[in-house]
């Protein structure tokens, strides 16, 4: 299959390794990856903060860039949620018939990364090896908007060598919420603190999720508190391979 990758603005800038991992997994599974170069941002930050007029051109841009795609894969649950929850309404609200139709045609082809593997390809074992103790945080948008359910966990369970430990209150928000983390820094930090202590209670070496924005937030406190626990995107775990002796 020809998979068009929408990397998202923050993965592109801050987490290029996740993009490389996505490419690695997809190519290992025999798919061809394509990267439309004009892509930038889905508009989530603007939309969610109340800058509706600023978000609209970014919707148009996404549609233009990915119109011809066979499938679009996005390693960020919140960006996919932005598209599914808001794009149809955004297009309809400005009475743009053409854009509304384009969005309706494109959205069924858009998948969050783990969702693409489990729901579109029907896979659980993608041939990964990752010999570490790992806990999984269910990012809010993946959990509630995309209904990822136990898909990511099934992918993780199939990873060879992994020691997967359950996170207490796994469905509770980490407190990121985009600009919320800055506008309501104290509350956001208190929410994060609960998440961090749950992560530490697992004794895991690493915390993973389907969204690097939550992980950046969790990582921020794990590092500040010198815990030695890492964060990494689900794709980074699934990209892991066993060293083959020559």
């Amino acid at each position, binding site marked *: 299959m020809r998979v068009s990758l929408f990397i998202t603005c923050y993965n592109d*800038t801050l987490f290029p390794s996740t993009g490389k991992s996505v490419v690695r997994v997809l190519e290992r599974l025999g798919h061809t990856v394509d*990267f439309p170069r004009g892509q930038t941002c889905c508009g989530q930050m603007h*939309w969610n903060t109340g800058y509706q007029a*600023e978000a609209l051109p970014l919707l148009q841009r996404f549609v233009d860039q990915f119109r011809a795609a066979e499938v679009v894969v996005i390693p960020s649950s919140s960006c996919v949620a932005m598209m599914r929850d808001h794009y149809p309404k955004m297009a309809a609200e400005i009475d743009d018939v053409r854009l509304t139709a384009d969005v309706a045609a494109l959205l069924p082809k858009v998948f969050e990364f783990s969702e693409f593997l489990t729901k579109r390809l029907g896979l659980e074992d993608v041939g990964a090896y990752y010999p570490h103790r790992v806990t999984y945080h269910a990012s809010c948008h993946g959990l509630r908007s995309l209904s990822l359910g136990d898909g990511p966990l099934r992918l993780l369970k199939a990873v060879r060598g992994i020691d997967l430990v359950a996170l207490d209150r796994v469905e509770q928000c980490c407190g990121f919420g*985009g600009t919320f983390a800055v506008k*309501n820094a104290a509350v956001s930090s*208190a929410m994060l603190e609960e998440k961090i202590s749950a992560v530490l209670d697992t004794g895991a070496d690493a915390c993973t999720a389907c969204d690097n924005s939550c992980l950046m937030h969790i990582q921020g406190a794990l590092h*500040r508190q010198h815990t030695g626990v890492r964060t990494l995107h689900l794709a980074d775990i699934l990209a892991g391979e066993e060293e083959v002796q020559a």
Partner: protein
Amino acid sequence: MSAGPLDPKTAPAFPMAAKAAMGDSQLRSNVRHATDVIQAKRARVVDEMPDWQALREAGKQIREHTMRHLDFYLEQFEANCTRAGGVVHWARDAAEARRIVVSLVKASGSDEVIKIKSMTTEEIQLNAALEAAGIQPYETDLAELIIQLGQDQPSHIVVPALHKNRQQIREIFQRTMHLPNLGDQPQDLADAARLFLREKFLRVKTGVSGANFLIAETGGVCVVESEGNGRMCLTLPETLITIAGIDKVLPRYQDLEVTLQLLPRSATGERMNPYNSIWTGVDPADGPRVFHIVLMDNARTEILADEEARQTLNCIRCGACQNACPVYRQTGGHAYGSVYAGPIGAILTPQLQEMHHAQSLPYASSLCGACYEVCPVKINIPEVLIHLRNKVVLQNTSGIAGLFDVEAAAMKAMAAIFRSERRFRAAQRLGRIAETPLVRKDEHGLGWISWLPGMLGGWSQTRDLREMPKETFRDWWEKRSGHDN
């Protein structure tokens, strides 16, 4: 605790109030414990329902239909209630509602009233108005009694004293009921309240209530509760005065079959409320001789006129969104500066203020969606929050002042960057240069930022940030596929 009434017009912005509230570790542990307990009870009785999602959908449909034809159902209610012997009054806003209630109490010849728990009376600060007119209100709901005696404010729409634990409640009762030897077992506290209230029930001749539902088809009013004290207030007084927002209407009696399943399971984790009272006008054989109902608008028609925010009015005040909210969990209710706290408060309060006050509340959410997930009438609270944020932004950025709004300027600049791939790449390069002076190496030789300037400083109070990688994904991709830019 918070001394003055919760008034969105004068309350501090949420981030400040929240910070102050979080300094109270007793409050935080009380809120966490109470919301955990209620959530667990709710989950048990919701999970046992095979048709819960269908019920939620039915609840949503009923409420949406009602709001679409609100004028019709209100008039139908008025006609049927009047026919049954009730007296219907209309109040445009809180001030008019207070005036009407005060004059009705005076006309009843009483200078005391017994009250059923009612958030609508809290919304309009009725008790203060009654007291100012020389009328003594007695709260009879146990939690409201605790609030009244403790000169406190409600922090939750269903469990107003949720922020208090048993020892604190005992202390309030000991002090105000003069019972120095009172124990702290639930039975001790309930007995003390019962003795205190029983005398009022028998003496006071005028009752004031809110309403859970108004039934247009019959003109009936429905109140549900757990204690039976409400039933006392509804049956013993000679005069009963009910105050209800115009959003409380249901078209048909039969609609209760849906709402009376959704509400108790969502609110208190009960299969059914122990006391479900429905009365229609007056009956010479039983109950109050005189029944007044005040139907209050107080900005609700403004909300109705906003197509996207209209769903706010579908709320049946179950409080499930408050219990599920990870923000409320940290701060409790008072930080919202309104009797409506938590997610429902974050959307309802600024709208009741017609967006003139409480503009920080739509931002008091990480948009995690836990509220939407539990809402029994499927109000998409995150969607309404975003819609209200847009209204706030449009307010703040209109006119000259908007030109000096730092956030708006940054947001507009970012949007311009994202509109062009070339500008985006330039910004990525520039970002790496700009952050360089802030980057420090950690013990593993990795670059981290632990201090950020200005608005971003909120992040770095508790969180580090990895330095930007030297190469973006798209740079890597282009190198790999062999065509350089």
